[in-house]
């Protein structure tokens, strides 16, 4: 087994365990911490794929900025442990079979596609940051600007809502 494969399985296991813990933890802070583990494990997977810029940005933006805000809000609201509710009957009956079915469909689709998934990993072929920025700011500049406009709208909306409370 190659070293890359071992690292992949370690990171994948970490991501899946983190995601499970995110759902199963009772306290919001513990859930948020599990989500950080997932984010960092995903960054490791990106690094394994040879896109080091995306990996760093994944940690800076998701692991850092966004999750810090999550934790900040949870701490500020001083949210306690979740109330333990009985799952709804529908979730009890249909939940696990549906999850298995979705996972099975995805696995079957990958296995039957007949060819290995395209991979960027290879000896010394790191995706250059320059190529990425060229693509983002030249080829896809309109979607990019549109996204930033959407975020601006969201920020404005938050400010309007906050103003109305006064």
């Amino acid at each position, binding site marked *: 087994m190659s070293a890359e494969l071992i690292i992949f399985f370690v990171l994948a296991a970490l991501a899946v365990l983190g995601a499970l813990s995110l759902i199963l933890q009772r306290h919001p802070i513990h859930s948020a911490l599990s989500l950080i583990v997932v984010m960092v494990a995903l960054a490791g997977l990106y690094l394994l794929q040879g896109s080091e*810029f995306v990996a*760093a940005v994944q940690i*800076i933006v998701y692991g*850092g*900025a966004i999750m*810090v805000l999550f*934790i900040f809000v949870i*701490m500020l609201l001083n949210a306690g442990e979740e109330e333990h509710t009985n799952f709804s009957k529908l979730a009890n009956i249909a939940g696990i079979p549906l999850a298995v079915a979705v996972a099975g469909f995805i696995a079957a689709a990958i296995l039957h596609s007949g060819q290995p998934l395209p991979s960027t990993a290879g000896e010394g072929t790191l995706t250059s940051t320059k190529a990425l920025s060229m693509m983002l700011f030249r080829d896809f500049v309109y979607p990019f600007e549109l996204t930033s406009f959407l975020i601006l709208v969201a920020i404005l909306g938050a400010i309007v809502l906050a103003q109305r409370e006064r």
Partner: protein
Amino acid sequence: MTAFLTQYAFLIAAIIKIAILVFMVLTVDAYLTWLERKVIAHIQARWGPRRVGPFGLLQPLADGLKFILKEDPMPTSADRTAYFLAPFITLMLALTSLAVIPFGPDFTIFGYTTNFGIADVNISILVLFAITALSVYGVALAGWASNNKYSLLGGLRSSAQMISYELALTLSVVGVLLIAGDFSLKGIVLQQQTATLGFLSWNIIGVGHGYGFTQIVGFTCFFIAAIAETNRVPFDLPEAESELVAGFHTEYASMKFAMFFIGEYTAMISVSALATILFFGGWLSPFPSTWGFTEYLPTLLLALLGAYAIYISIGYETTFGRILIPGVGSALIVVGLVLALIPDLNHFIQGPFWFVAKVFVFLFFYIWMRGTLPRFRYDQLMAFGWKFLLPVSIANVVVTSAVMLWRMPR
């Protein structure tokens, strides 16, 4: 055996480098506390530590012993996992950040060429920012997990402060990145190297790159934001002792407290190293490389220091003064002579010598500010970060790009 060595040379070199770096950084951390106490004492017309060992030099060891031997209580209502995790996160991230810092040019030892630092990553500056982004968790979790209102307030303040100043910190570096066109710290240093201009070609002055531009505004923003990120005076609101007891680490004692402490000092070192690399030419000598004789400067300094030690020993009448001080003085002179007589060795230490010298200037500046400035008020801190520092660093990016466009050959 040789085959084994050549196959695993990278791993072996990395492990040796990590061991040396961790040992040196922890030692420097310990003596930084000594230096801080001494300098602040002298600013306040006191003596500082002088009981334990000569000039109080064994004080860090005594402190360390005390930290290890103290009882380590935990608040009964604390959140156990987060309470244990917080100091480890802080220390681990602080030490990891040093892994990507180049302390000197590449060198060859026993026929194996390696970089002067642990990892030579082509996105090293982004790795540093990622680590900075994650290091908020140590402080925030410590404050929350202690289940103490002072700790919680300290943790909240710290998270808010670090989120606010991270923006200015990242944006102030963009000017340098534009000029260098490279995310690698080694590349940024090499780009500041010219044959004849010496320190004039460092990014802080920025002459001689064709389309370079002075980054003095960027540096000012960077350093102010960096002080806020490391929670030091005048931005030490997370642990403002007159309001919050000790802030986020109120409930921590013994080695866990020491871990926060070491983490803070290591963060200071890595931020100073980053400022050195980005704006002050990293390991480059401030003199033009044609001035070969400046390579003997470390020798000269060591010899002068040794001579001074021997000179002050004349005034002592104790065994310590009569034997130890002249001994240390002659040892320094001998080391200086060895450097002067072995040109290869002398050439090898030039990079680290200048790097460490510049880093210590920043560390002294940190301590000097702690002895000089009062603490900000919380609303002043937020207003300063958002309404002044952030716009100025954005303006720096715009002006730098405009000047570069204007000077670029068309």
